[in-house]
């Protein structure tokens, strides 16, 4: 046990581990805040679709030789998020089909481009593995990535705090919000942009295939225990941050992949909360 703590102390003295912890906590916080809205609006799968779009954009950035791919990936993902939302109910390709189409299309094209333009000098398997499953990418962040994550996270939290009441009304009854003169379309658009931002930032932590877990698991866990929007949101944020920290510490100590370890922690917490929820329901 002593050796474990001394190893942990040694690891924590490394700047890239400190960066990973800061970014991990911020990403977990942001993803859980909007997660509640996404789950309630039945948009859980949009995160998955957008993360695949982000993977495709990342592949294009790699092919173009961009050392900093964040601006391109962010722009493409935000545009796709807005397009998906703006397609509307009267579009020829309906919402779920459009998400599925863009999702697998971007994933396939991204991997295809990376293979065709791979010069042999880069570690293609490692890059793809890291991008899809977030095996170690959060432990290899550049200073720019860290600052970008911090700024975007602050913006997301500010958006959530400032527009809390609007998000609440749009989430529960969009028609009522429209009837009372609120610009539901605008707030939906803003939510889509913020979701895209969260997806791009979260890719660093868990990889593009596991992002949905980071978004929906904390919200679902909190919903097992609490009923009001506010308490569910607060609980989801706490659960998400705690799971991210447990996952990160376990990963660096036991040598397991970062992304899947965090998701495993989320699954365990979900199981515990489901059990606790059932017990408290019976005792109430």
């Amino acid at each position, binding site marked *: 046990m002593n050796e474990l703590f001394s*190893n942990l*102390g040694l690891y924590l003295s490394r*700047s890239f581990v400190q960066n990973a912890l800061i970014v991990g906590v911020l990403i977990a916080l942001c993803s859980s805040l909007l997660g509640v809205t996404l789950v309630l609006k039945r948009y859980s799968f949009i995160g998955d679709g957008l993360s695949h779009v982000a993977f495709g954009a990342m592949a294009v950035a790699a092919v173009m030789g961009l050392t900093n791919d964040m601006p391109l990936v962010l722009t493409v993902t935000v545009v796709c998020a807005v397009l998906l939302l703006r397609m509307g109910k009267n579009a020829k390709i309906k919402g779920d089909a459009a998400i599925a189409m863009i999702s697998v299309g971007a994933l396939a094209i991204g991997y295809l481009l990376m293979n065709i333009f791979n010069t042999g000098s880069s570690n293609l398997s490692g890059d793809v593995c890291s991008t899809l499953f977030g095996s170690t990418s959060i432990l*290899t962040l*550049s200073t720019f990535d860290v600052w970008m994550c911090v700024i975007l996270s602050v913006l997301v939290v500010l958006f959530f705090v400032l527009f809390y009441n609007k998000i609440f009304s749009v989430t529960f009854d969009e028609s009522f919000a429209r009837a009372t003169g609120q610009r539901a379309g605008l707030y939906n658009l803003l939510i889509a942009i913020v979701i895209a931002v969260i997806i791009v930032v979260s890719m660093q932590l868990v990889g593009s295939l596991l992002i949905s877990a980071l978004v929906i698991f904390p919200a679902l866990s909190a919903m097992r225990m609490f009923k009001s929007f506010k308490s569910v949101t607060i609980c989801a944020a706490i*659960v998400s941050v705690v799971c991210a920290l447990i996952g990160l*510490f376990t*990963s660096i100590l036991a040598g397991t992949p970062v992304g899947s370890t965090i998701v495993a922690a989320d699954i365990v917490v979900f199981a515990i909360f489901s059990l*606790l929820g059932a017990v408290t329901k019976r*005792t109430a």
Partner: protein
Amino acid sequence: MKKLISLLFTALFVLSLAACSNGNTSQPAAPASSAVSETTAEIPATSPAATEPAAANQSAKSADGIDVDLTAMSSTMVYSDVLNMQQTPDEYIGKIVKMKGPFNVSEIGDNRYFACIIADATACCSTGIEFVWAGDHSYPEDYPKKDQEITVVGTFNTYMEGSSKYMQLKDAEVEF
């Protein structure tokens, strides 16, 4: 009951955040083996300029004076540390690095490069770190056989060859 559980999770959250602070880094990690500890004592001192690690990446030294002990780390940390060495080599210059893995040699033109292969956490590929053995040693008599497991302790350094920057462990002590 719900309030109690909420309180419990708030306390857990605060505790986990407290864990983010720097641990007791002065606590040295246990040396991997006594034999290697003896070897590291013989490592020649590096130049003052080279021994100043970048403040941004300062790490605690172990009892045997090793800054980055890749042999005592988890596979995730090894992969991340090696990748960070490649991405930000300047932050590692002058640090004493210890590594373990199969020996490899490659000959390009008139030059011969000796390396220790570091296993990859993603299990798809490995990275070789070049080393320059301190003292006079002739190849192949004094060197280990290819793929034989070796332990290398040396000072991290970078050098330019053509337009490319390469990393190596100089003044290295090799055990096999």
